[in-house]
């Protein structure tokens, strides 16, 4: 069998397994945990698309997530808009933020992008508290409407959107576009010398990444029925980066696996949920020192090797 075929079959198996989970376990608690895990999967995959491929690490991905979630919150709570509109508006607002941050910082080499994103998300978190008249401050916005009444149906909606985004991201990553992005990671100056408009590629990849993160943010908001300043925290961005690292950078499917794995892991070891950040930090250190390629993507490559 050729590699591509094995990849597709593997993806279908994974999708079938995820679709079967609520049918096997059925409790609304597990469906809820899995819905949140799918949102994390969306965030991790979108982080990986920009940062994993181009090597420009984004330390403030929560900026886009929070922007998407708060857009959903404002539309729903303040304007009473139909919750379906959130799914359209959230990516648009996240894209605006990505353009604002991407244009000044992505032209430059060095760590400017990483740190500017970190600062921007930290300041947005502060702003949500300063403008508590509009944002609800520390309590956030409450009383969002659910998009679908049944949690099971909402799980499948999230799963469908995650699968669709993953397929789009993976196809783009495998196309000549993705090749350019990976080339930028390898040697930016050479790409420029070859006549590639490096800045254009970097900014568009950030825009795509932000759109999907914003969509994930809106989905998360309509699951929790509440948005709060914790969606802008640096810790959220860091959790996502750790998930990507566990999955394996630059592979798109690896980070989704990493997000599911870490979410399920912390939820199974219930006693550990107090020490969630400890677990994550420890995992990060272990991965950095012993598994620099991550765990899930190399594992899949090995499995694929057995079938080809």
């Amino acid at each position: 069998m050729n590699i591509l075929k094995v990849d597709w079959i593997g993806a279908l198996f994974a999708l079938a397994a995820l679709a079967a989970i609520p049918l096997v376990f059925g409790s609304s608690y597990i469906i809820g945990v899995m819905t949140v895990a799918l949102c994390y999967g969306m965030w991790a995959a979108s982080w990986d698309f920009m940062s994993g491929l181009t090597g420009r690490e984004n330390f403030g991905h929560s900026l886009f997530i929070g922007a998407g979630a708060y857009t959903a919150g404002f539309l729903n709570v303040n304007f009473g808009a139909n919750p379906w509109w959130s799914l359209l508006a959230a990516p648009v607002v996240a894209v605006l933020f990505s353009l604002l941050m991407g244009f000044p910082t992505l032209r430059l080499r060095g760590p400017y992008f990483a740190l500017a994103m970190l600062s921007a998300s930290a300041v947005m978190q502060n702003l949500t508290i300063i403008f508590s008249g509009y944002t609800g401050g520390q309590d956030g916005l409450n009383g969002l409407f659910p998009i679908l009444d049944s949690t099971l149906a909402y799980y499948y909606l999230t799963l469908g959107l995650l699968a669709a985004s993953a397929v789009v991201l993976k196809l783009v990553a495998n196309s000549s576009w993705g090749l350019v992005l990976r080339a930028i990671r390898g040697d930016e100056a050479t790409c420029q010398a070859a006549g590639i408009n490096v800045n254009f590629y970097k900014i568009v990849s950030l825009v795509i990444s932000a759109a999907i993160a914003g969509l994930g943010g809106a989905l998360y908001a309509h699951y929790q029925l509440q948005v709060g300043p914790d969606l802008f925290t640096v810790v959220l961005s860091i959790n996502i980066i750790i998930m990507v690292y566990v999955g394996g950078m630059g592979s798109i499917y690896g980070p989704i696996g990493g997000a599911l794995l870490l979410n399920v892991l912390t939820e199974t070891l219930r006693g550990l949920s107090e020490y969630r950040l400890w677990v994550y930090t420890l995992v990060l250190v272990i991965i950095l020192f012993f598994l620099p390629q991550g765990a899930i993507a190399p594992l899949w490559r090995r499995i694929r090797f057995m079938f080809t």
Partner: protein
Amino acid sequence: MLQILIYGAVISAIYALLAVGFTLVFGVARILNLAHGSFYALGAYGVYALTANLHLPLWLAAIISVLVVGVFGVLVERILVRPLRRSMLAVLLITLAVALMIEQILLLIFGSEARNVPSLVDTTHHLVGVDISGQRLLALASSIIVLAGLWFFLQFTRLGSAILAVSQDAEAAQYMGIPSDRMYSIVMGVSAGMAAVAGVLVAPFQTVIPGMGLLPLVKAFAIVVVGGLGSIAGSIVGALLLGYSETIIAFKVSIEWSQIVSVAAVLVTLVLRPAGFFGKRAAF
């Protein structure tokens, strides 16, 4: 007006202390230290623990706290950062892991409620018509002394020259017999110590909570971008600019709005002059 002048000077001095340490580590060792704010938090908590639990005199607690954080910085460089130096991203992430760990440890030991650290000097002074606490004046004076000391150390000692040489070209310095790796450790220790000094000085008039290191990190980064990444003079100018603009906005508009200055400054600088005021190259 005079109030802005004096309070702005205090804030700028503290910012300069933080930013110079941050830029020093980057300029010499090419380490972008995301744990810099955590060293600041450790300094503040060190004083708290030593005075409240061990009942040491305040000045002794301050000195011990700064020295311990400095040694801790050296250990972080030696044990965690050095094996990962090949990859810039890995270095970023390991310093981030250190920052997370420090915050969690502080949370575990001291809990999330704010702690009070007593002032080194309890007096209130009347300076050119402005009332100001002695602690703030002490912070101003100590920051200037530490910065002057650092300048003297870099310019007039053999070790300082070696550090400057490594910052210009680590490989060439190595050929001249300067152990670059050891210089990285020393610089990390000095930088961590300076962050701790800042933490110790502001602890009496700041809320001491486990997450207190994040905003100073953001500020230090903003200052360093405005001044030029890797430039010490630039960081001091940047600190004055940011410190005074924040104070002016805090007095004239509101304290809340002053938070946004740093990020706005970063974006404007990167659009108009990406190298910063004193940066020589556009970017590294």
